[in-house]
């Protein structure tokens, strides 16, 4: 068990791991220094999600998209939520953002505490005062996230003008400032253009600028780089890093791409079938993954420096969330599955102050299975 984790850790390229980092020679040192300055994350919790359960009514029945999710987000950190598609990570993001359409969606249980208020209980008007101001969101596909019929400038400033009493000129100045921040040249000219006049990477920069224009405390990024080319991906991730350094914004990063996680996450939550099955800081998850699913996920990522060991995609498919299994949802695919796994969902085991896992293998009686 630990051996597997250790192997992977040695093999992986983690940004702040003792193993060699992969920054470009020139900027590498500078970035490394920035990181050290930045990563004094406070222990102050800015967002607390407790026992969240969300379901959707469909033709086929009720899909239980999230089945009891709890986590905290600390000020200024980046929490990555990873998992296969359909595991509920995007639903989690949308719930925090207050974007779950009800109906067909339904928040069955739980709370999202932000600034001493439960966001799931707020009325629409109160929610709107938080949306875009305190919490912002970035979407997956920059090609569809911008309104094709409105000029970029308008899309940038409308949020600002809705929430703050600023003049048009002032809003425009702020918009220019934001475009400059996200690295778009000729910002004044660009404000007058339509989305189709920009490339995909540029559009994602604009989306980020829109999300940040009201200086939010929390940024939720739902697969922000998935729809982009690899080279553009790297640029956007660098931009994220830079922005977090400059603004100290807290980030929840939804992704299925462990490469992205390795670059910018501080902590990682692994989701499976609507539950967080393991959560910990980046080193703990990459070096010492405890849940067989996390191990499988890490095993399925290609690594350049790992030639002798072949990739192992996890066999099987996630369970049907119309009728989720009573026990551990991963049991059907788990190489260590025991009878108990099918019957009862495992309790959460606290491994370190930040690292917890939901797995029966943590139970002393399961020792025999591992050996």
């Amino acid at each position, binding site marked *: 068990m630990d051996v597997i984790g250790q192997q992977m850790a040695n093999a992986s390229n983690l940004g702040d791991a003792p193993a060699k980092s992969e920054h470009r020679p020139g900027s590498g040192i500078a970035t490394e220094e920035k990181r050290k300055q930045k990563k004094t994350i406070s222990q102050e919790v800015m967002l607390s999600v407790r026992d969240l359960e969300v379901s959707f009514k469909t033709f086929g029945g009720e899909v239980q998209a999230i089945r009891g999710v709890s986590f905290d987000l600390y000020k200024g950190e980046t929490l990555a939520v990873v998992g296969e598609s359909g595991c509920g990570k995007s639903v989690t993001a949308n719930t925090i953002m207050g974007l779950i359409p009800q109906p067909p969606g339904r928040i069955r249980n739980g709370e999202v505490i932000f600034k001493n208020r439960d966001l799931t209980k707020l009325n629409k008007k109160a929610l709107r005062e938080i949306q875009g101001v305190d919490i912002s969101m970035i979407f997956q596909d920059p090609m569809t996230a911008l309104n094709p019929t409105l000029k970029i400038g308008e899309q940038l400033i409308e949020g600002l003008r809705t929430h703050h009493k600023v003049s048009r000129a002032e809003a425009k100045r702020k918009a220019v400032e934001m475009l400059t921040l996200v690295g778009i040249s000729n910002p004044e000219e660009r404000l007058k253009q339509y989305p189709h006049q920009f490339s995909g990477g540029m559009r994602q920069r604009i989306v980020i600028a829109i999300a940040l224009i009201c200086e939010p405390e929390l940024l939720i990024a739902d697969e922000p780089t998935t729809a982009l080319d690899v080279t553009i991906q790297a640029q956007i991730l660098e931009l994220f890093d830079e922005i977090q350094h400059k603004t100290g914004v807290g980030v929840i990063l939804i992704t299925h791409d462990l490469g992205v996680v390795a670059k910018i996450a501080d902590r990682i939550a692994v989701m499976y079938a609507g539950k967080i099955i393991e959560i910990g800081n980046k080193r703990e998850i990459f070096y010492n993954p405890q849940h067989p699913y996390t191990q499988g996920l890490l095993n399925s990522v290609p690594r350049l420096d790992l030639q002798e060991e072949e990739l192992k995609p996890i066999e099987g498919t996630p369970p049907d969330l119309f009728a989720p299994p009573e026990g551990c949802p991963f049991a*059907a695919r788990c190489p260590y*599955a025991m009878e108990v796994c099918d019957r009862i969902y495992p309790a959460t085991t606290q491994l370190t102050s930040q690292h917890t896992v939901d797995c029966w293998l943590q139970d002393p009686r399961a020792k025999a299975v591992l050996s």
Partner: protein
Amino acid sequence: MVAKDPNVSIPDEWFRKKGDGHEQAEAVVRPSLSYWKDAWRRLRKNKLAMIGLVFLVILTFLAIFGPVFSPYEVTATDLRNQNMAPSATHWFGTDEMGRDVFTRTWYGARISLFVGVMAALIDFFIGIIYGGVSGYKGGRTDSIMMRIIEILYGLPHLLVVILLMVVMGPSLTTIIVALTITGWVGMARIVRGQVLQIKNYEFVTASKSFGAGTSRIIRKNLIPNTMGPIIVQMTLTVPSAIFAEAFLSFLGLGIQAPYASWGVMANDALPVILSGDWWRLFFPAFFISITMFAFNVLGDGMQDALDPKLRG
């Protein structure tokens, strides 16, 4: 979610690795249905569409057998019984020539359904050939064929139809010819769109590499895969053709007296409507409306049922 006190009640033997238990949990997969079965299942759930379908079945039945139930001929005049209100002898009343409105209504149904179905079928054949060739050939051919369609699309259809009716003289054949001359364009567009969408699918490339000819690819591969929207378009062509026939007949350009179509009957009823002979207008108007309603809701239902985007 979690058992209250997990460590107490769980027997130790549950903590043994399962033998080969991987398969069982994955057995719960919903049965996969074929495209048409699935569509039919969805359609059946749509109450409105089902009402439309049932009505059309009844209407077809009555159009065929309705006149049989009636002792009156469709063109038989009876000057002693003019403008009779509905009664036991004349269920839907009589018109100013003493003709039985009940009998004439079902003859009208025959004409409406015939015009609608024929127009849809002819549109279908022309559209599928034109659209299929245009979409499949692509390039210059497609470009030219589409320009032609674009121009035809810009023509005011009903005006052209009226013009044709004037020239060819009013008759059932003329109506159908006139309607299809302008009507196939929409079908051709849809077929072309469908063909373009699936043209590059792998199975087409595959059959091409086996040396299958163009016409064979169109027949065997493309057509079966483009049927959904085409069937919907056909279903929606029927009511618009029925409307056009009624409209033309109402203007005096359709079926000629003494024969009956719903449009003719409504037109004949116009002068007497103010004198309180409500049944003269009511029956043809009611059946035109409800037939169009039935085809429209059925078409809508089929659209929802066949749209792959909505399948899940």
